[in-house]
């Protein structure tokens, strides 16, 4: 059977593998982010200090902003792990195809 037809037919398995891998990646990213220190006031905050009270929080440059404290590692890792999941799925389907092919021949 055509490899690409198998890929499409077993897509539900591919989605499962991609999701599980992305999930593991997300947890790993969060783990890494958790190990890293506090960011606090950023250079960008200091540059925006002059705007305080107009288009910036009053305490900008003095206190860290919550939005700037996210490193979003988990999304980055999730994305990369999702691709790994996809590659695993493709490799698995190669073996599946070979097995399917042999089985077909025997029958």
């Amino acid at each position, binding site marked *: 059977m055509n490899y690409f037809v198998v890929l499409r037919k077993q897509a*539900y398995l591919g*989605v*499962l593998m991609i*999701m*599980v891998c*992305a*999930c593991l990646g*997300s*947890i790993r*990213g*969060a783990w890494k982010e*958790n190990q890293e220190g*506090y960011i*606090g006031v950023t250079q960008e905050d200091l540059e925006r200090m002059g705007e305080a*009270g107009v*288009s*910036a*929080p*009053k*305490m900008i440059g*003095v*206190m*860290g*902003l*919550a*939005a*700037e*404290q*996210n490193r979003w590692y*988990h*999304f980055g890792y*999730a994305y990369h792990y999702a691709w790994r999941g996809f590659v695993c799925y493709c490799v698995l389907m190669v073996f599946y195809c070979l097995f399917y092919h042999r089985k077909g021949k025997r029958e």
Partner: protein
Amino acid sequence: MDGIFSYMLANNPYDHLFLDGKYHEFPNDNGWIDAHILKEHYAAQDYDRFDYAAVYNHQRYDVHPPLYYAAVHTLSSLTPGTYSNLHTMLVNLLGLFLADIVLLRLFKRLYGGSGYGIVPIMVLMSMGTMRFILTWARMYTLLFFFCIWYLLIHAGFIMREQKKTDYVQMVLCIFLGTLTHYYFYVFAAAVTLFTIADMIRTKSARELLRYLYCGIMGLTASWIVYPWVFFHIFENPQNKHTDIEGWSVERVTVCLAYLRDRLLGDGTWKWVLLVGLWCVWLFARKKKREMAGERERRHLLFRRLLFVSGLLYYVTIYTLDGGVIYYHTLLYAAFIVWVSMLLLDTISQIGRLPALSCRKQWNRYAAGIAAALVGVWVLFSGAEIERYLDRAGSVLHAIREEEPIISDFWRAPDFFPNYNCLYVETEQDPFFHNFLFSFGEYRLFKKMSAEEYELHGIGRKELSGGLEGEGLVVYLPKKYEPNEEDYKLFAKDGDYRIYEYVGGMFE
């Protein structure tokens, strides 16, 4: 207090969760700070409208998932610079509205007519406990909706009437429910275990695989978006559930008393009546057990699912948190559906007794619902509902007559625009004893401790730096009485009084 915290978690642009830890870092002049800094902590401003990164970060350090706070932030962002009760109430109303729709669909699935859904909606409206949860600025109404939705999906699986859309809904429901509250996991696990056991018992392997597949999809999607759940549960940063008590006879008694009071309101007689109804149903069912079809058996199985999952949830959460009213929201959800089904089933069974000559009329759609509603009225105390309607009537009357619903005490900033505020604090509190929303509306703000006040009162030194603007109001604990020449009483509440400073220093 938790209600105030909801606004802070949703709208605070800074990286801390509690004000009192950072208060001393705010720039000040002799202790006077710009009150707008306080307001920034709870009201969305022009610069952080629809900024969900801050909400996400706060929830990372809090112990709840971010969906509810994101919803509150969205509504707050529609009216930047202002605080309104409606920001949280609208989220609750949306949750209630969706829960009502889902209840109608659930009872249509179970009984074949949407009209039957009126019974659980009436039960929901009549429960004192639920009225508290529906008006509270926390995520529990939204959680209630997701729980009822999960039950609707599982009614399909148990009744063997699942459609393709049920699988999609299941993924979505797990994704959103787990992003609303972690206790959704507990309830969903109880319901899921029961459903899996049924699928194994009936050897529905294909259904089971599909079901597990969708469950894993929902969970992984949720964990990709919010992996901090693992850190909250396993690292326990806020030391929750560290003092779990073991079960004892006394605890079982207290636990049963909690169930009695919270589910049906005070009064053991209602439970006697409920158990009586159950007995009537059992008796009537025994007479026609042989005739019961597959659909009827499945219907009963779903009722058992409600009972078992509600009980499992209750025991687990009571072990972890004891009788905290809002943590048991999902028990109330299961109970509402269960008790409505019991009422409708009992009435239907009585109607089928051969001895009853008017059974044809009895079994008619409207009569069954009406009789069940009478049951709801009796079980959940008509007096409670009347009191509820009376209060709603008085609020409507006040709105019609343009009378204020909130007392002058809580509207003090409206009477003193551009005034400064001095607050005498009896003990340190991150929400200034729930006055935070008032303090943020003034011009300048200063707090002093009760000990300082007892030492030297409010003198020139304390007022120095705070005499700009239109004037000054002082929030003072009621045990202190300032001199009447300088301070005019404006309003009083339980523990505090508000005085307007009328001394000469502003002239």
